[in-house]
C-alpha cells in the first residue's frame, strides 16, 4: 500500500525533473543559436592564418633525394632527344639556305627595275620639299621666341628661389623638429586607436590628414588602404578621436611657415608596431 504512493511521488519528481531539463535545454539551444549566427563572420580569418604557417613548416628532406634521382634520369633522356633534334634541324637549315639563295637572285632583278622608277619619283618630290622647308624655318623662329620668354621666367623663379634659400636652410635644420612632431602625432593616434580583431602585424594604411593652425583635425581620408577595411576605418577613427594635436598649436605659433609647409595637409603612414598577432 505504501509502494503505489511512493511511485506516485517518484513520478511527480521525475516529471518535474523532465520539465526542468527541457526548459534548460531550450534556453541553452536558443542562446547557442543566437551565438552561432553572429560567429559565422569570424570563422574564415583563422583559417587563412593557419595556412600561412603550414607553408613554412612543409620542407621535407627524404623526398628530395628520390626526386633528384628521377630528375637526373629525366635530364639524360632530354639531352639525348635534344641531340637528335639538333641534327634534324641542321639538315633542314641546309635545305633552306639553298632555297633562299635562289629567291635572292630573283629579288635582285626586281629591285633594279624598282630603282629606276623611284629616281623619277624623287625629282618630283624635291620640288615639294623645298616648299616645306620654308614653312619649317618659320616655325623654328617662333619656337625660339617662346624659349626666350621661358628663360626669362626661369630667371625670375631662380631669383625668388635664392631669396627663399635662407628660409629653406633653416627649414632643413628643423627637419628633425618636423620628425619629432610626426612621431608625436603617430603616438597620439596609436594611443587613441582601438585595435580591431582582424588587425595583423605588418598592416599599414596611408592617411591624408588636414589640420588648422590650432592643431584641430579638419579632415582625414584614406589614401592607400591596407586591404582591411576595418583596419582603415579604425585608423581613421583614431585620428578623429584625437581631435586636436595640442603641440601643433605651439608649433604654428612659433613658425607658421613650417606648419603650413609640413602639417597643413600631410600624409601619415599608420603602421602600429606592437600588434600582437
Amino acid at each position, binding site marked *: *500500500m*505504501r*509502494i*503505489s*504512493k511512493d511511485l*506516485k511521488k517518484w513520478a*511527480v*519528481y521525475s*516529471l*518535474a*525533473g523532465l*520539465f*526542468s*531539463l527541457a*526548459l*534548460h535545454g531550450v*534556453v541553452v539551444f536558443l*542562446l*547557442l543559436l*543566437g*551565438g*552561432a549566427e*553572429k*560567429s559565422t*563572420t*569570424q570563422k574564415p*580569418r583563422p583559417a587563412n592564418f593557419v595556412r600561412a604557417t603550414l607553408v613554412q613548416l612543409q620542407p621535407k628532406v627524404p623526398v628530395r633525394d628520390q626526386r633528384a634521382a628521377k630528375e637526373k634520369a629525366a635530364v639524360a633522356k632530354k639531352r639525348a632527344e635534344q641531340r637528335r633534334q639538333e641534327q634534324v634541324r641542321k639538315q633542314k637549315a641546309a635545305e633552306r639556305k639553298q632555297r633562299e639563295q635562289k629567291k635572292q637572285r630573283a629579288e635582285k632583278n626586281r629591285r633594279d627595275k624598282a630603282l629606276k622608277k623611284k629616281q623619277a619619283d624623287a625629282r618630283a618630290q624635291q620640288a615639294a620639299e623645298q616648299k616645306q622647308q620654308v614653312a619649317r624655318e618659320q616655325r623654328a623662329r617662333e619656337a625660339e621666341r617662346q624659349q626666350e620668354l621661358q628663360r626669362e621666367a626661369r630667371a625670375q623663379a631662380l631669383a625668388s628661389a635664392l631669396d627663399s634659400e635662407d628660409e629653406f636652410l633653416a627649414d632643413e635644420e628643423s627637419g628633425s623638429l618636423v620628425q619629432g612632431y610626426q612621431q608625436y602625432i603617430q603616438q597620439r593616434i*596609436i594611443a587613441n*586607436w*582601438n*585595435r*580591431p*580583431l*582582424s588587425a595583423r602585424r605588418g598592416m599599414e594604411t596611408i592617411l591624408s590628414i588636414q589640420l588648422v593652425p590650432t592643431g584641430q583635425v579638419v579632415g582625414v581620408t584614406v589614401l592607400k588602404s591596407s586591404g582591411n*577595411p*576595418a583596419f582603415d*576605418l*579604425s585608423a581613421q577613427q583614431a585620428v578623429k578621436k584625437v581631435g586636436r594635436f595640442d603641440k601643433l598649436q605651439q608649433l604654428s605659433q612659433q613658425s607658421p611657415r613650417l606648419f603650413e609647409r609640413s602639417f597643413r595637409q600631410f600624409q601619415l603612414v599608420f603602421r602600429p608596431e*606592437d600588434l*600582437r598577432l
Partner: protein
Amino acid sequence: MPEQQLSLLSLVIGASVPVQLVMFILLITSMVSWLMIGQRWWYLRQMAVGFKVFEGTFWSGVDLNELFRDGSVRLKDSAGVDGVENVFRSGFREFNRLTKNEGTDPDAVMEGTERAMRVALSREEEKLNTHLPFLASVASVSPYIGLFGTVWGIMQSFRGLATMQQATLAVVAPGISEALIATAMGLFAAIPAVVAYNRFAADADALYGRYDTFADEFTSLLHRRVHSS
C-alpha cells in the same frame, strides 16, 4: 566596421577552470531548483483541490463515522490520504478512543483530541514547506556564486592586461564578457527561485491557515458532542 562577435559557446569553453566550475554549479542548481518548483507547484495545487473537496463533503452533513471509514478504505487501497483529511482522521480517532471508556472527563477527551490534531497539523505543515528552504537558499546564494565567477574572470583578464604594453578594449573585452556569463547564470537561477519561493510560501501559509481553521471548527463540533451527551 564589420564587428566580429564571439559566440557564447566559445566563450564558455574558453573560460578558465574556476569560472567553468561556477557555471557548472549554477547550471545544476538552476535545474534542481526548477525540479523543486515543478514538484511544489503540483503538490500545492493538489492540496488546495483536496482541501476544497474534503471540506465540501465534510459540511455536506455526511456521517463522520462514514467519512472516517471511507478514508480507511482508501488507505487500504493504497490511494493515500493527504492534507486536511489526516487532521480530521487523527482527531476523530483519538476522540473515539477516549470516549470508548465511559466516565472519562469531557475536558480530558477534548484535550487529547486537540493534541492529536495539533500533531497532525504540524506534520502537514512540514509537508507543505518541504523544499521551500532549498528554493530560498538558491534565491539568495546563486547570485553570489555567479558574482564570484565574474570577479574571478575579470581578475584574470586584468592580470593578463597588466603584462601587455598597450591596453586596448579588445584585449580585455572577451575575458570580461566570459566572466559576465557567470553572473547572468546566477541571476537566471536566482530569479525564478525567488519568485517561486515567495509564491509557494504564501500558498503554503494560506493552506495551513485553512487547515487550522478547520481543526478549530472540528474541535468545536466534537466539543458540542461531548458536552451534550
